[in-house]
C-alpha cells in the first residue's frame, strides 16, 4: 500500500498538482532518495511515451481517413496488379516488344526482297495489236457529219491493225487471232497496194492463230509463194527476221532466236530478240534461208528485247486440223524455197508482196 501511495505522490508531482511547500519537500526527498528519483524518472518517461504513442495513433488514424477520402475522390482505382506489374517490368516489356517488332518487320522485308525477282517474272504479256490513233478524230468526224448532213460521209478508218502473210497461193492468210478479235470486217493490203476483203475461216485462240481467206470474186491468186514452212524446231542463236506493219509502211526487223520457250516457259513459242511494236502481231518469222519458223504474237512489258513468236509447227498443226474439219479444201502449201540462196534485200523484195497489213473494222 505504501508503493501505491508513492505512486499517487509521483503522479501528482509530475502533473504539477502539488502545492508549493509540498513540492519543495518532495524535491528535497528526491535529492536524497536515489531509488525514488529513479522511479520518478521512469514514470515520467513512461507517461511521455504513452502520451506520444496515443497522439501518434490519432495522427495515423487521421491520415488514413484522409487517404481513403482521397481515394474516393479519385477515379475508381485502376487494376492495381497490372499497374505494379507494368511499373516493375515496363523496361523488359519495351525491349521484348521492340525485338519482336524488329524481327517481324525484318522478316517481312527480307521476304519482300526475295520476292522482287519473282515479281519481275510475272510481268504483263503485251499483245502487239495496234490501236489506230485516229480513232478519236473519226468520232468527231462522225459527229460533224451528223451536224452537217449535206456533207458526204467519209470512209471510217480501221480501229485496229496488225500483220498477216500468205500461206497458200489460193488466198489463205495467217495472222494472230487477237488481231482480228471482235472484227466486223477485215481488209488486207500489201506494199504493192493490192487490197482484198477477207473473212476469218478458222481460229485457234490457244495458240493465238487465225486463218483468213480472200472472199473477192475477182481474186486470181497470190502467185507462187517464195518461202516454205519448217515443221521442226529451230536452233538457239539462229539469225531470224520479220516484216510487219507497226506503222503505215512496212518495217523490217532482225535479231536472233534467244530462247526455245516463250512467255513463262510456254513451249509453243520462241523468244526472239527483235524490237517489236504494236502492229507487228501476226507477222512472219523467217530464218536466214527464208524458211518460215514462226508467227509474231507479243512481247513482255517492261522487259528489254523479249518478244515472242508461235512456232511454225503449231501453224502446220492448225492447217491440218482445218483440212480434217472439212470446212475448206486441203491447202496446197509451197514446196520450193526460192529465197535460200539470196541475200537479205533481195529476199525482202520478194517477201513483201506476201506480207499484208490486216485492217480490222468494228
Amino acid at each position, binding site marked *: 500500500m505504501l508503493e501505491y501511495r508513492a505512486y499517487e505522490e509521483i503522479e501528482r508531482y509530475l502533473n504539477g498538482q502539488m502545492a508549493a511547500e509540498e513540492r519543495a519537500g518532495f524535491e528535497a526527498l528526491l535529492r536524497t532518495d536515489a531509488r525514488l528519483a529513479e522511479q520518478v524518472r521512469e514514470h515520467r*518517461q513512461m507517461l511521455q511515451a*504513452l502520451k506520444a504513442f496515443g497522439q*501518434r495513433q490519432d495522427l495515423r488514424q*487521421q*491520415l488514413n481517413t484522409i*487517404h481513403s477520402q482521397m481515394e474516393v475522390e479519385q477515379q475508381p482505382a485502376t487494376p*492495381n496488379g497490372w*499497374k505494379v506489374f507494368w511499373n516493375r517490368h515496363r523496361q523488359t516489356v519495351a525491349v521484348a516488344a521492340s525485338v519482336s517488332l524488329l524481327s517481324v518487320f525484318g522478316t517481312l522485308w527480307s521476304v519482300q526482297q526475295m520476292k522482287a525477282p519473282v515479281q519481275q517474272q510475272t510481268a504483263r504479256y503485251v499483245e502487239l495489236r495496234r490501236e489506230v490513233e485516229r480513232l478519236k478524230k473519226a468520232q468527231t468526224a462522225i459527229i460533224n457529219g451528223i451536224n452537217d448532213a449535206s456533207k458526204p460521209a467519209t470512209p471510217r478508218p480501221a480501229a485496229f491493225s496488225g500483220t498477216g502473210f500468205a500461206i497458200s497461193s489460193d488466198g489463205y492468210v495467217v495472222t494472230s487471232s487477237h488481231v482480228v478479235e471482235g472484227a466486223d470486217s477485215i481488209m488486207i493490203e500489201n506494199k504493192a497496194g493490192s487490197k482484198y476483203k477477207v473473212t476469218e475461216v478458222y481460229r485457234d485462240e490457244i495458240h493465238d492463230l487465225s486463218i483468213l481467206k480472200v472472199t473477192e470474186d475477182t481474186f486470181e491468186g497470190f502467185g507462187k509463194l517464195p518461202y516454205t514452212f519448217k515443221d521442226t524446231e529451230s536452233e538457239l542463236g539462229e539469225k531470224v527476221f520479220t516484216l510487219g506493219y507497226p506503222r503505215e509502211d512496212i518495217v523490217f526487223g532482225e535479231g536472233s532466236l534467244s530462247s526455245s520457250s516463250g512467255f513463262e516457259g510456254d513451249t509453243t513459242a520462241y523468244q526472239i530478240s527483235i524490237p517489236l511494236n504494236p502492229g507487228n502481231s501476226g507477222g512472219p518469222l523467217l530464218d536466214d534461208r527464208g524458211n518460215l519458223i514462226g508467227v509474231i504474237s507479243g512481247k513482255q512489258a517492261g522487259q528489254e528485247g523479249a518478244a515472242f513468236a508461235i512456232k511454225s509447227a503449231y501453224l502446220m498443226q492448225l492447217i491440218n486440223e482445218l483440212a480434217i474439219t472439212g470446212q475448206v479444201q486441203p491447202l496446197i502449201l509451197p514446196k520450193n524455197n526460192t529465197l535460200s540462196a539470196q541475200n537479205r534485200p533481195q529476199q525482202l523484195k520478194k517477201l513483201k508482196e506476201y506480207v499484208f497489213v490486216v485492217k480490222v473494222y468494228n
Partner: protein
Amino acid sequence: MKKSLYETDEAVIEGIRRSDERALAHLYKLYFPMISHFILNNSGTDDEAKDIYQEGVIVFYEKIRDNSLELTCQIKTYLYSVCRRLWLKRLAEKGRFATKLDDSDSFVPVEDDTLQHEEQERQFGVMGDALEQLGEPCRSLIEDYYIRMQNMQDITDKFGYTNTDTAKNQKYKCLQRLKKIFFATYKPEV
C-alpha cells in the same frame, strides 16, 4: 473547403500549428501523387507508397507541432527528401540495394530528422507490443486514463468498479505491469 486558403507553404504550416485538420488534409492530398510516383518508379507498391508517405507526413507534422523544424526549402522538397531517405532504408531492409534511384526532384539532407523518427517508431512499437501483452481490461483502462485523459469517475462507471479507489488501485497495478514489460524490452539509445 476553399483550396486558396492553403496556397502557400506558410499558410499550411500556420494551419497545422492551429491544429486545423483541413490544412493537414490539403497538404496530404497535394503531395501524395509525387511520392506515390517516386515509390512506384523505384520498385515499390501502392501500399508501400502510402506507408512511406504517411511516415513522411508524420515526421513533418510532428516537427511543426514541436516547433523544431527550421524549414530551409519548400515543404514539397522536404517531404520528398524524408520519403526518399525512408524508402532507401526500407529497400536496404528488404535486401534490395537500389544502385540508382530514379529521382524526380531535388532533395536536402534530412538524416537527423529521419533517425529521430526511427527511434520514436521503435519506442512506439515497443509500447504497442507492451499494451498488447497487457491484455484487457488493463489496456483500455490505461488508454482511457493516460491517453484519452478521461477522469477517474467516468472510468469507474465504465468499467463498473464500486468506487474510484478500486479503480485507482486497479490502474496502479496495471501501470506497474506495463512499466515492467515496457522497460524489459525498451532501452533508450539516444
